[in-house]
């Protein structure tokens, strides 16, 4: 009994151990986002840590590689009359006996308002609301950013992706500036960069039907090469 009492007194003394900051990061980066939002108010140093971009990278890397897909979700869209988004955990979809999907409230939602999911990468979702408003939305923290108006006419195609080379998120929009008929009119391709928070034209061309299919995704990471290809194709057309 005596020796037990001694051991416990030693352990009480050693309770004052300090957990090194890198270990705190290792532990916190394995938590779900909901817990992190709550633990921001543990202390100022935890708030600073959890809010830092470096932590977001670490957290994303671990969540994306989780073997049980515990942090992955699938977003489902229901069709008219009401455009609803539903959230379904991927692990429950793959391994659960019952799969449940919950209504997901998205920004700028209106009853019967049209919503389109352009794409999803690294937990960020690009939405177009009523064919007009482009949003980048992080459903985990329920924050969103409304993109500036791309000033296009009739949108034909959209794409959303992550540009690893420049560590930037990009949205590509192909729009027809004047008419509903894609084939005969001028087509404008614009690209939005989250880093610069602006749109720029990457090409304006005609007879777009020839290469439009292959354009949206490659353009995001291999812009220059695509532009060269387009120019070559345009030359051929002429």
């Amino acid at each position: 009994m005596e020796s037990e009492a001694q051991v416990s007194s030693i352990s009480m003394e050693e309770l004052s151990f300090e957990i090194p900051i890198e270990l705190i990061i290792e532990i916190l980066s394995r938590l779900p986002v909901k817990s992190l939002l709550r633990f921001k108010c543990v202390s100022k140093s935890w708030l600073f840590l959890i809010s830092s971009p470096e932590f977001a990278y670490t957290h994303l890397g671990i969540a994306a590689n989780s073997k049980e897909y515990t942090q992955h979700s699938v977003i489902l869209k229901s069709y008219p009359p009401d455009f609803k988004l539903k959230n379904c955990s991927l692990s429950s979809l793959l391994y659960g006996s019952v799969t449940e999907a919950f209504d997901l409230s998205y920004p700028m939602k209106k009853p019967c308002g049209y919503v389109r999911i352009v794409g999803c990468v690294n937990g960020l979702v690009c939405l177009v609301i009523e064919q007009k408003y482009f949003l980048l939305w992080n459903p985990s923290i329920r924050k969103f950013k409304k993109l500036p108006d791309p000033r296009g006419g009739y949108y034909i195609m959209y794409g959303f992706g992550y540009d690893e080379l420049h560590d930037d998120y990009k949205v590509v929009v192909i729009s027809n500036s004047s008419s509903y008929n894609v084939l005969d009119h001028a087509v404008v391709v614009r690209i939005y960069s989250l880093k610069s928070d602006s749109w720029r034209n990457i090409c304006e061309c005609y007879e777009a039907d020839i290469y439009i299919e292959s354009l949206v995704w490659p353009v995001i990471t291999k812009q220059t090469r695509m532009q060269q290809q387009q120019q070559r194709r345009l030359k051929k057309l002429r």
Partner: protein
Amino acid sequence: MASSTTGEKKILTLKGGDNEEFILEESLVLQSELLKNMVKEERVSSIPLPSIKSKTLVKIIEYLKKHAELTPSNKEEFKNFEKEFVNVVLEELLDITVAVNYLKINGLLEFCCQAVADRIKDKSVEAVRKIFRIESDFTPEEESEFRKETPEAFEGDLDDTTN
């Protein structure tokens, strides 16, 4: 010389915080990056680890032994062992995690960190402060701001216990 080796196997002594000694095969401790460097570069045969409690060291040695015996055929058994390994009170789990981090046993470190995360994910803010021995430096007003900003993070049954 003969006393420190048995056949080809080298023997090493680890000394825990309360001076208890643990004698084990050198090959086992090579799983720890820290000890590996000490053994290889300094050729020591006894390593004092004053910051690690003997109780913690016993657990870690148990893991090193099991891990060394891991083969494709006993994978399931090892997984069950791992589950049991972290099935201790949270304070002890944190002790183990801190020691594993210090000793740099990489696979085990990730496993322990995930186990700690799983144990604290549904805890209340107050419980987490107690577990990590952190004093709040926010005013009550600032704290209620967080609750207003992301009310969903504070919803549900939060666990106030520290174990």
